[in-house]
């Protein structure tokens, strides 16, 4: 692993597409669908990151379901300092915790407005940003 000038791990900017539990999530994002695991037993959404057993009732059986893509901002921040070369020209940029309507939360970006316009409690909806090797779910204010 490469290190920075203080001997710390170089930060990673990309998702692990091959993480076995998360593979279906990243494949669905590629098709612009936001999906999550729903427990076949207690019917609750697992949340993220995906995992093999239900975090609510510990049942194993689940299905991948497509979510509405609607959510609410639980908290929001603005990075004014870059910890990764890819973000040097993006500061200040928003990062938000978005609670999804059906359950589960993502660390994500609210885009399509200035960072200071992102407000806790505001309704947002998913948009997908395509990169050469993967697609990220991000969110925009509901008009």
């Amino acid at each position, binding site marked *: 692993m490469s290190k920075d000038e203080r001997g710390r791990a170089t930060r990673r900017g990309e*998702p692990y597409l091959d993480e076995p539990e998360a593979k279906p999530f990243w494949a669905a994002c590629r098709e612009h669908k936001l999906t999550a695991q729903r427990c076949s037993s207690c019917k609750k959404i697992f949340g993220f990151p995906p995992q093999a057993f239900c975090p609510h009732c510990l049942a194993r059986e689940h299905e991948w379901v497509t979510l509405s893509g609607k959510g609410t901002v639980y908290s929001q921040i603005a990075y004014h300092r870059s910890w990764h070369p890819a973000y040097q020209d993006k500061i200040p940029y928003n990062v938000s915790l978005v609670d999804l309507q059906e359950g589960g939360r993502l660390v994500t970006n609210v885009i399509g407005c200035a960072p200071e316009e992102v407000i806790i*409690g505001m309704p947002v909806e998913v948009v997908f940003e395509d990169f050469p090797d993967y697609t990220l779910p991000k969110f925009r204010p509901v008009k």
Partner: protein
Amino acid sequence: MANISGKYCIVGIGETAVGKRPDATTNSLHLEAIKACLDDAAIKNSQVDGLLTNQPLNDSHRSYAVKLAHMAGIDPLFATDLALGGATPIAMVQLAVMAIDVGMATTIVCVHARKRSTADPTPGHPIRRGDEHWEEPWGHFAAAGGHAFAASRHMYEFGTKSEDLAEIAISTRKHASLNKNATMRKPITLEDHQNSRMIVAPLRLLDCSLESDGGGAVLVTSAERARDFPKKPVAILGMGQHHPHFSLLDAPTLTTLGGKKSSEMAYKMSGLGPKDMNFAQIYDCFTITSLITLEDYGFCKKGEGKDFVKNGRITIGGQLPLNTHGGLLSQAHLEGQLHITEAVKQLRRNEVEPERQVANAQMGIVSGHGGSLAMHATLILGAI
């Protein structure tokens, strides 16, 4: 449940010089802290039979405690690494108490050092935080970000302002200015805080702790054996832990953290409450961490931290002196190891600069906090 309150003591402490230690390594800082601690307790390494440590950040690998014990000439009957981030130094003391209580060891050194200010050329692999691959693709990289989420939410729910967080930074810096072994000793004002650059809004540079080199250690033994040591023993009166989530993705709330249940357990064990505490050494990786913990520990109601920290209440001479050494914000960030050693020094008396001594220090509370605001541990200590 057998109550261990008062049955175990801290009988030795060690602190290295902190700040920039370019000639030191992660390993040498650990050994320096152990030596200072055993010298303070006036015992030989051959008389120590247990060692607990944290996984070193720059070189995580199996059984660092066992390696370190043998590097220090200790033949441990009990040794393990803990990995609770900034809650680890307190968790080590708690595990030492448990190990001694069941008879697996008698005299355990708990040590942690960090090499984060200057480069450590020793080969090794940095430790992972875990789940960063569900954060970093969206540009969330730093502990400052996680704590900014909590600050942002606290401001939304309770009307807390950046100027309120500044009170903690200013008071802590004042304490550091009185501490010869502190990195940042120049007093700061509200204006300095408000003019300091934004790191992750709403947190500014002066809301953030330092990156430090240094180490600290404490020696734990039974109250019975403690009488044989030269320094005044400090009793362990209460302890607790709570880890209410792991990452930001599964946190039920970011405005009440593990400190609530952890302190409730420690208060119950000790038979004491917030009003009995003469000082508080509260983990301060960011100003918001201390504000939330003061509320969770019952020093004020939830949401009232912003008023509690005003008017000199948390400064030495006030009702509840907070981080009398200068904390992670201004002394050094060694994951709270020095919050424990400072509490011991305050309770021993006459071991800190006179202007830093809390008058009539009889009891104090110490907190540890780690990960994505996830892990928490509490210790209540008392003079004997």
